[in-house]
């Protein structure tokens, strides 16, 4: 996990970490199988993402299947299963009309010297509160309570 976050940092990827990993940065700890990120929807940024994945995963040729024309077009969500087999990545450029990289407020955290852009508790709450997944609604309720967020 850390080597990927380091690669994101080194490549200058414009991204925001959302999901359980982001909650972890805010001290709300639960396990997950994936890292969820919003990325800025530009061709250059998708190339940064691909370079970061290649750097983290020994030039995995599957990374070539990530296409800017998908993420900027009809496929705003891409899932990448790296060869390490221990986790996967959900990469998104937008969430319907509700959210995108530009609309999610974020802050910079640090872990082992790596800068990580993490969605704020309020942003995570907004992303999670109206989704269909019960786990997300549970996360939203936890965020609301722990950070005193308003409905």
């Amino acid at each position, binding site marked *: *996990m*850390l080597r990927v976050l380091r690669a994101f940092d080194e490549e200058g990827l414009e991204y925001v970490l959302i999901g*359980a*990993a982001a*909650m*972890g*940065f*805010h*001290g*709300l*700890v*639960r*396990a*997950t*199988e*994936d890292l969820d990120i919003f990325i800025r929807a530009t061709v250059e940024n998708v190339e940064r993402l691909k370079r970061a994945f290649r750097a983290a995963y020994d030039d995995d040729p*599957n*990374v070539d*299947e*990530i*296409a800017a024309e*998908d993420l900027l077009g*009809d*496929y*705003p*969500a*891409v*899932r*990448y*299963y*790296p*060869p390490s*087999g*221990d*986790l*996967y990545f*959900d990469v*998104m450029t937008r*969430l*319907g009309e509700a959210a995108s990289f530009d609309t999610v407020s974020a802050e910079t*955290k640090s*872990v082992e010297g790596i800068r*990580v852009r993490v969605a704020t508790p309020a942003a995570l709450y907004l992303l999670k509160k109206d*989704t*269909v*997944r019960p786990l997300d609604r549970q996360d939203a309720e936890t965020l609301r*309570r*722990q950070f005193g967020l308003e409905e």
Partner: protein
Amino acid sequence: MAVQRFRSVEEMDAAPVAVPPGEGFERFARQCARYWVIAPRTYPRGVFRFRSLAEAQAARDRVTGDNAAQLRDLP
């Protein structure tokens, strides 16, 4: 505080979990590692694209179901 007492599950649920500042991500990573030991998983490889989060969720559910079935089949 090593032990906390609660009069009800609701009171327990509302109590803030004490995570020292700055330790959240390390604890998160350790928690994920623990689950890997308890429930090892197999994922497909490569890149999959989705038109919507609902599509992505359905694909996730299929992989989760396959992994749960594998665990049930273990001796």
